[in-house]
């Protein structure tokens, strides 16, 4: 699951898709995950980092991860 190459993201959660002109904003954890995704980390690696740093159960994260990917797909930000 990769983020489209031309998507611009910033650390404070601002996201811009130049091909559609759409912009998005995300909460801090979303911004963090986006940066990881852009840097080429795999889903597994990212989830490990989150589990290490945040107070969350693996099962909860797993569910939210599915949901997150749906949001990205919906926003047309994923390279399918």
């Amino acid at each position, binding site marked *: 699951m990769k983020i489209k190459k031309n998507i611009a993201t910033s650390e404070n959660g601002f*996201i811009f898709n130049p091909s559609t002109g*759409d*912009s*998005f*904003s*995300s*909460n*801090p*954890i*979303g911004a963090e*995950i986006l940066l990881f995704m852009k840097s080429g980390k795999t889903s597994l690696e990212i989830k490990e980092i*989150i589990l290490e*740093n*945040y*107070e*969350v159960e693996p099962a*909860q994260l797993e569910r*939210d991860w599915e*949901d*997150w990917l*749906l*949001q*990205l797909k*919906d*926003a047309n930000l994923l390279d399918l």
Partner: protein
Amino acid sequence: MKLRYERPYLKKMNVGVMNKFGSRSDFQPVKFIDGVSVKSLTDKYGSPVFVLSERQIRKNYQSAVRSFNTRYPKVQFAWSYKTNYINAVCNVFHQEGSWAEVVSGFEYHKAIGNGVAGNHIIFNGPEKKEADLKLAIENDSLIHIDHFEELYKLIDICEALNKKPRVAIRVNMDTGIYPLWDRFGFNYENGQAWNAILKIVGLGKMQLVGLHCHIGTFMLSTSAYAIATSKLCDLAMKCKNQLQNPIEYLDLGGGFPSTNTLKGSYLPGVDTVPPIDDFAEAITTTILGYGFQQNELPMLILETGRALIDDAGYLLGSVIANKQLSDGRRATILNFGVNLLFTSFWYDHHISPAQDFTHYTEETILYGPMCMNIDVIRESINLPLLSPGDLVVVHKVGAYNMTQWMQFISTRPAVVLIDETGQTHEIRQAETLKYMEIPESVPVHLQHKK
């Protein structure tokens, strides 16, 4: 220390909207109700659970009474049982001095059970059974006649019992508010109400002591009450002058709005709803200006329901799951639905999370857990990001929900009253399967073999 987690969330920004997430500074978690923590309430009594504030009920009552008795010498409130007839709730009103207003034998017996004096019970409604009418006559209750059928039935009963009950007629009328509630009572404009009065007074089997109307509910127009009052005054004057039958009381019914926000209205209820003072002003100035002599001023009765209790009630519940719908909209499933929150058909209920959250919000649909499509609590609401297990507080649910709730696919939850010292009391236990099955019986040939 690990960081506080929040699920990752993305929101599309509309061009031209500068504020990232809209201004949502009005969001505050609601962690306490009258000083009692929401979490402790659900821990102790389960989720969902209805919570009522005794302090708020009394405050509402006292302030409504003040609105009227600072303007008019003879005022009496009668608690509308159907609005919330949990006995503890009724007794708060009765302790404050309220009579009872009932619309069925069931409610009538509840009022008697709560120790209300028979002559302080107003018996309204289109369906009064013969046995209930007889009891009401024996108890000297105030019977408000709804239609001619009932009038004739009462005449028969009076003859059989050889009693002369105190009665009123319910009058319906054009107050400029549509649709007219003309299915209840006798119409003013077409002369039906006057005919009923002539019949009652002429036959002499009953004492016509009052005139009643209830022009609608969640009424936003104070002038409608002025019109209704003047039409009742007109009938009262005619009773006195033409029939030598002075009227002892005018009952203006209920109908004052609570501060809930009606569905589809642009502004929140708190900003649009006239205060009770304005209704009191419209009603009392009309009576005082009508030309009654000081010693003949009728008593003014009010059957106010929702305005006295809506904002004293809360529904606490939990988030079950979040979803994304096929069209991309977000949805949140809660552990209560329209089965418990009947009023979500009318209101956009204000809902607050009961725990801390960040300033990120999303627009979501709130669904209940019923397996039916109409089970929607809010079609669209902007809320902080909620996670499964999070608690939410629904505000202003004190009126009609605890009487119109449906027992569908699960049992109804507990109702808790927080008294004025902050003590909690379970005033109605959560229903159980066993309780639900008490009235059932299975014929022998259908019983399963153990």
